[in-house]
Structure formats: C-alpha cells, structure tokens
C-alpha cells in the first residue's frame, strides 16, 4: 500500500510546505500590489496591469526555464547554489502565483464602489485603516484570489521539475513524483499519488471556502 511508504509522506509534506510558502509570499506581494493597482492612478499603471494579467497565464514550464537559467551554476544567480533545492521551487512558484493573486486582488478591489473609500475617509479613517477596511469588505473575492494562487502552484509540474530536479528526499514533490511513476509505468502509484494530491487540494480549499462562506453570512 502506497500510503505505508514513508517517502510518500515526505513528498506530501514537502509539496504542502513549498506550495504553502509560495502562496504566502505571493499573498504578501500580490495583495499590496493589487491594492496599489486598484486604488492608485500613476503613469504606467495600465502597462503594469497588463503585465500582471499576462503573468496570470504564464506557462509554468517557461517560468521553470527562466528560473533554471538564472539559478544554473553559470547563470547570474548561480553563486547562490539554489538550483535543485526546495527554495528554487518556491521561487518559481512565487513567479507563477504572485501575478494570479495580484491580478485577482486588483479586480476584487476595483469591483467595490469607489465612493466607499471616500466615505471611509469621511469617517476619519487613516489611509491604512481605509485599506484594511476595504480588504475586509472584499474578503470573499480576496480569499478566492488566494485559493486560485494556491491552486496554480500545488498543481504545476513543469517549473518544479526544471528547477527542483525531482531529487528523492530533497526536491521531489507530488506532481513530479506522479510524472516519475508514470514514466516508469507504475500507474497504480501514479494514480494513488494523484488521488492524494486531489485530496490535499480539496481539504485546503475546503478550509478556505469554509472561512470565506462564514464571512459571507455576516
């Protein structure tokens, strides 16, 4: 039985850690950047928004290629010795996930009535209090942005394979393990790992959806 294999739990834990950390970093980048894009007017805003929206459709394999080239021993960041490490996977996944969180956060905040910001200022909110209030107001679509960001990285394989190298006990995650098992013809293990990946994705999204819908009932 595949679930008795300690390697599976190691791989599962690494997948959750890497994708969870990448999503968290994407949130820390994407929410403030999405807020600036939604609330401010500055030269180049439309261009930046276009880049972000394009970034939402970045093919993971292209991201993997770019990050691998940068982190490769002869690459500009080769001195950091990050290629084929979990950190390299996190970097690639942040590049995939951050535009998703940024773009969807900007869209969520732009969907609010712009006069709400004026009303909050008129009630004596500082700029920071105003921003926190509108984040709270848009909490449902913002959680959806977070779920989309996590979904984009937990399920990607191309970037993890290219920058992580699928090294046993080091950088093997669920998606790269599924590819490996399929390549060696062990479909039973590949399917079991696939089911495990789906289960994890379901449980995390279930938790986030529960939080989201709890907020919706208020």
């Amino acid at each position, binding site marked *: 039985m595949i679930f008795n294999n300690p390697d599976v739990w190691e791989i599962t834990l690494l997948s959750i850690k890497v994708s969870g950390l990448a999503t968290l970093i994407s949130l820390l980048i994407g929410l403030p950047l999405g807020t600036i894009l939604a609330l401010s007017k500055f030269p180049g805003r439309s261009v930046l928004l276009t880049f972000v929206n394009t970034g939402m459709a970045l093919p993971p394999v292209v991201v993997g290629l770019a990050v691998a080239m940068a982190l490769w021993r002869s690459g500009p960041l080769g001195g950091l010795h990050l290629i084929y490490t979990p950190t390299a996977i996190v970097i690639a996944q942040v590049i995939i996930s951050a535009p998703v969180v940024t773009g969807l956060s900007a869209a969520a905040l732009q969907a609010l009535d712009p006069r709400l910001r004026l009303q909050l200022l*008129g*009630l004596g909110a500082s700029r920071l209090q105003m921003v926190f209030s509108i984040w709270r107001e848009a909490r449902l679509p913002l959680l959806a942005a977070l779920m989309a960001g996590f979904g984009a990285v937990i399920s990607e394989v191309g970037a993890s394979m290219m920058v992580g190298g699928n090294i046993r006990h080091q950088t093997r995650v669920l998606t790269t393990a599924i590819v490996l098992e399929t390549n060696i013809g062990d479909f039973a293990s590949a399917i079991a790992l696939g089911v495990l990946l789906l289960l994890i994705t379901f449980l995390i999204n279930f938790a986030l959806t529960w939080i989201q819908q709890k907020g919706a009932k*208020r």
Partner: protein
Amino acid sequence: MSMLLDIRDLVVYRAGRPVLEIKRLSIEKGRVLAVAGPNGSGKTTLLLVLARILKPAGGKIQFDGQALENIPDLKYRRLIGLVMQDSLLLNCSVFDNVATGLRFRHIPKIEVTRRVGDWLERLGISHLRQRPASQLSGGEARRVALARAFALQPDLLLLDEPFSALDRSSRHKLQEDLKKILAGANITTIFSTHSETDVQKLADLKIELDGGKLEV
C-alpha cells in the same frame, strides 16, 4: 455666535475646467445650512472639499479660526462627519457600522458601546443593532449611515442628499427625526438637497449653486 467656516475665493477644477467657484461663504457654529441646486451644480463637490477629500485649486478656508491648510488632513477629517448620498454601509452588523468611525479614532470599547447604543436609540433603530447591513431597507440604511456620523460627535456634519431615494413616508419621518436631533445636538450641519421642503424643514440658511457658482 462665532464662525465655524469661512470660505473665500474657492475654486475647484475637474478635467481642466472649473466645477465650483465660491467667492464668499460663512457659517456660524450650530447653524444648519442647506446647499440647493440641480444635478451637477457642484453640491457634492463642495461637501467633498469641506471633507478635505477633494483639493481645491485655489481659495482660503478657515475652520474654527484656523486656516484649513494648517490642520493635518487626518486631524481635520476626525473633526467632521460625512454621510454620502448612498448609505455606503460596510458588510457587517448595524452596530459595527455605527462603531466604524469611533474605532478609527481608537475610542475605548465601553465608550463605543455607549455612543453607538445612544445613537441607535435616537434614530429609532436600536432593534436593528445585530442585523447585517445587507438586510436593511433603504430608509433603515440611511438611518444607520446618519447614526454612524452623529456618533462621532463631529464639529461639522456634512450630509449629501440625506433624503434621496426614500419613499414619501420614510422621507417625512426621517425629516422629522433629523429636525429634532439637529435642534438638540447643536452640531453645525451642511446638507445638500434638491427639495425646498427639506430646506424649509431643516435649514437655518440656504445657498443655491448653479453651474458650480454660488447664487447668494
């Protein structure tokens, strides 16, 4: 009675053209001023300038004897209360909506509870205290928006069309309640309106804006 607001040569531009020009306007403390005029005449613009949300291109505004530009933005905005035309309530309970501005000011919790309870009572909506704002009627939402501003005990209250989009009965009842509250609270108030009835019922003074210009 001393002067709360004194405006001189105020000019506001939007998209390169003047949308509001006021040579001179003063209001004494405790007075209720109606700003009348058709749509697009600059009523909301005036209120937003007085809330210090829109910046004028020129002119001087004195607030309680001090030049407005010498008062920090946030400090000034915490001396006033603004109620915009649509109630613009937050997606939370009536209590939390009314408490919003007080919490921005870091007022102690016990005082927040007291003031919110007091103003819910005075506006006849204490039975709605725990109701989500999304489940209120238009009239109830307007009362919550007013309670939210009154609870701040502002030196200057700015109301943008406080009775718009209300049915006749809700409008009449709110006019009566607001009249009583304004008479008792002694809060300097400026409200915009289309309606002569609103002016007659509530205002001590009236100005008329036409095409962004003040007709005295």
